[in-house]
Structures are given as structure tokens and as C-alpha cells.
């Protein structure tokens, strides 16, 4: 005769999952804000050396005032004999000349020029303002850096950047 009906079955009530999308969206937005898109997967092996007090390139990236070029040993060892010192440049496929994107250092001039000419006119910073960021492997010979500088000097792209891994924190 009790007023409270005792539930006879021992079922666990289903969990309310209506807030799950909110949580996942929150994660999504966090990752959208905190990360940047990959430029490309280079076809050369690059381990950047460490350096302190370097400049953050993100603002230049957001303004598309930067081109990345990778310098290292080709991932395909058979290709390395064709290049000076065995180190090749990996450029994105603007020139469309070979499928694996490996080029000799002298090719950086035409590549940069083609990339610059392909940009829409409204976002045209002058070519001497567009940074060429060289991501070189730590074992790469410095002579190649100067070969690249010579090529860039010819097309008057005077702003160059040497990429490093940030070592300021001293954690690793």
C-alpha cells in the first residue's frame, strides 16, 4: 500500500549525450585556432638545427608573404647522386617538371618567380618583401645556402630566412 512505486526492473537509464556535440565542437575550434596547415610533405629529409631568439614566421604565413623551400638528402637514395653534394631542394609543384619535386639549387630562381607571378594581383607584396624560408637539414653544406642566395639575388628577392627549431625553452 505504499505511495512510492518501487521499480521492479533494475535498468540503468540511458545516458544523455546531447552535450557531446558541444564538447567535440569545442575541441574542434581549439585545434582550428591552435594549429596551422601543413605547407607540404617534403621529399627530402630535413632535421632543422636548434637556434635561440629566432623570429616567428606565423604572421608572415598568414599574410602569404613567405615561400618555403626544403634542402636535404632525397628520401629516395637513388636520386641523390644527381645533385651537388647529394643534397636536393624540395619545392612545391609550381614548376611541374618532375613528379617528386626534387630540384637542383639553381632552380630556386625560376620557381620563386613562377610562384610570385601566379599570385592574384591584389595581394602583391613586392618580390623583395616576400621571404624565402630555407628549411635545411643540419648536415647540409653551407655552400648550397650561398648558391641559393646567389640565385635569389638575380631575381631581386632579397629577403631570406634560415629556419631553425626553437631552442629558447631549453626543454629538449
Amino acid at each position, binding site marked *: 500500500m505504499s505511495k512510492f512505486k518501487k521499480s521492479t526492473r533494475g535498468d540503468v537509464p540511458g545516458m544523455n549525450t546531447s552535450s557531446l556535440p558541444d564538447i567535440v565542437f569545442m575541441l574542434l575550434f581549439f*585545434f582550428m585556432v591552435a594549429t596551422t596547415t601543413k605547407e607540404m610533405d617534403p621529399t627530402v629529409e630535413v632535421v632543422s638545427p636548434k637556434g635561440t631568439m629566432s623570429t616567428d614566421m606565423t604572421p608572415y604565413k598568414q599574410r602569404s608573404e613567405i615561400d618555403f623551400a626544403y634542402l636535404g638528402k632525397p628520401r629516395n637514395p637513388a636520386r641523390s647522386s644527381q645533385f651537388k653534394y647529394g643534397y636536393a631542394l624540395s619545392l612545391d609543384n609550381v614548376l611541374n617538371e618532375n613528379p617528386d619535386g626534387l630540384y637542383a639549387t639553381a632552380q630556386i630562381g625560376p620557381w620563386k618567380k613562377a610562384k610570385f607571378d601566379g599570385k592574384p594581383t591584389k595581394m602583391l607584396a613586392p618580390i623583395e618583401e616576400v621571404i624565402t624560408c630555407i628549411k*635545411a637539414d643540419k648536415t647540409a653544406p*653551407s655552400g648550397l645556402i650561398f648558391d641559393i642566395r646567389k640565385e635569389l639575388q638575380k631575381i631581386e628577392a632579397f629577403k631570406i630566412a634560415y629556419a631553425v627549431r626553437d631552442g629558447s625553452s631549453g626543454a629538449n
Partner: protein
Amino acid sequence: MSKRSIPEINAGSMADIAFLLLIFFLVTTTMDRDQAYIRYIPKPILDPRPQPPVEERNLLAIKANSNNQILIRNEIVDMENISEKVLRFYQANEKKNEAFEFPFYSRTPKSVITDNIKRVEKQLKELEEQDAAEEFIVAKEQELDGWIGKRDALALYGGDVLPEISFQASIRIEVSNTTQYEVFVKIQSEIEEAISILRDKEAKRLFNTPYAVLKRKNSLDATGMDEIEKLDLLDVLYPARIIEVTPKR
């Protein structure tokens, strides 16, 4: 009209869609920021005449050979100690010109700067009246800009004299063709560290702001005008004139 109830939309798949987007962004993006040292390649020299020689005390020659050993002013130096040498190069004569093997400082008084601005402005006007050749006018305009820059720097610096390191003082990096990139970058890193220490000290003293903050603010601004005056002053006080020599062998 009978009241019809609208059936609720099933939002159960919303989480799945959001997960899909999340995983897409996780895969296509990277967390690490790109860090680099920005350098300027000099314009090609078209003038075949030899350049005037630079006094030895105004040059800090840093050399690296193919065995990754470093030589500064004919002295073998450990890689970690490059920044100390750079600091010494800038600070040796900062208070008083007493060390003869390091670049001298000039202390230009305010009156000299204002006099020079007046003088150059007058000369520029004369040149324009005479219809002089374009290159003379451009050279004069550059001279005028230089003095105006010094006036603005001094106004921000405060006081009556602007201490300036010799205009020839520069750091010269000479590597060999087969020096590893790691060593080349280490030299750049050490120079940057030394200059940052010097500029940071002045930035904190003058503007109560760390140098890194000023730099960051400036790079975030597309027009680059935000903190440019302060950065210009620091650049006048401790100029980073880095010469990178193309290796011959």
C-alpha cells in the same frame, strides 16, 4: 485547422559530424610554429671601382672551416662563446672610447643634428633649383633621411647626446663550402642572442617593455607601423650589420 506538432530533428549524428571535422583538422594541421632568422641579401654591386677599406677594429670576423671549428679574430673559439665575443664587440667602447681594437662610439649632440638637417635641406633646395641630375638629389634626400632618423631617435632616447657605434662596425661571417648548416645557423643564433640581450636591456630601460614584445607586436601588424619608432631607435643604438661572405672553397 488542427494543431500539428513539428517532429523534433534527431541530433544524434551531430557528434559524428563534429568528430569527422575534428579528425580532418588534426590530420591536416601541425602544432609547431615556424621559427627562422630573417636576413637580407645585398643588392649586386655594379660599380667596378674598389670599395674603400674598412678599419680592422670595426670588423668582427667570424670564420668557420669544413671541420666546423670557429675562429674569431684569429682566435679559436668554442661555439657557445660566440655571443660573448659579440657582446664585447658592442660594449667595449660604449661608455668611453678606450679599447683601440674595438669600434669607437660617436656621441652626436642635438645641436649638431639640427644644424645638419638645416644645412642638408638648404643644399637640397639649391640642387632642385639648379635642375641637378636625379642621382645627386636622391643621394641628398637619403642624407636628409639619415639625419631626420637620428633626430627622431634622439627625441625618443632622451637627453642631449645619441651614442652611436661606428657606422662601419659590422659582423662578418665567413664559412667554407662544406661547413655544416648547423654551424652556420649556430653562428647566426649566437649573434642574434647577443644583439637581443643588448636591445632588450635598452628596451626595458627606455620603454619598460621587453624587446621580444616590441618585435612581436610589430610583426603582427601588417603595415608594420605599430612599434616601428621604438624598434628603429634600438636599431640605431645596436645595429645588426651582418655580412655573409660567399665561400670560395
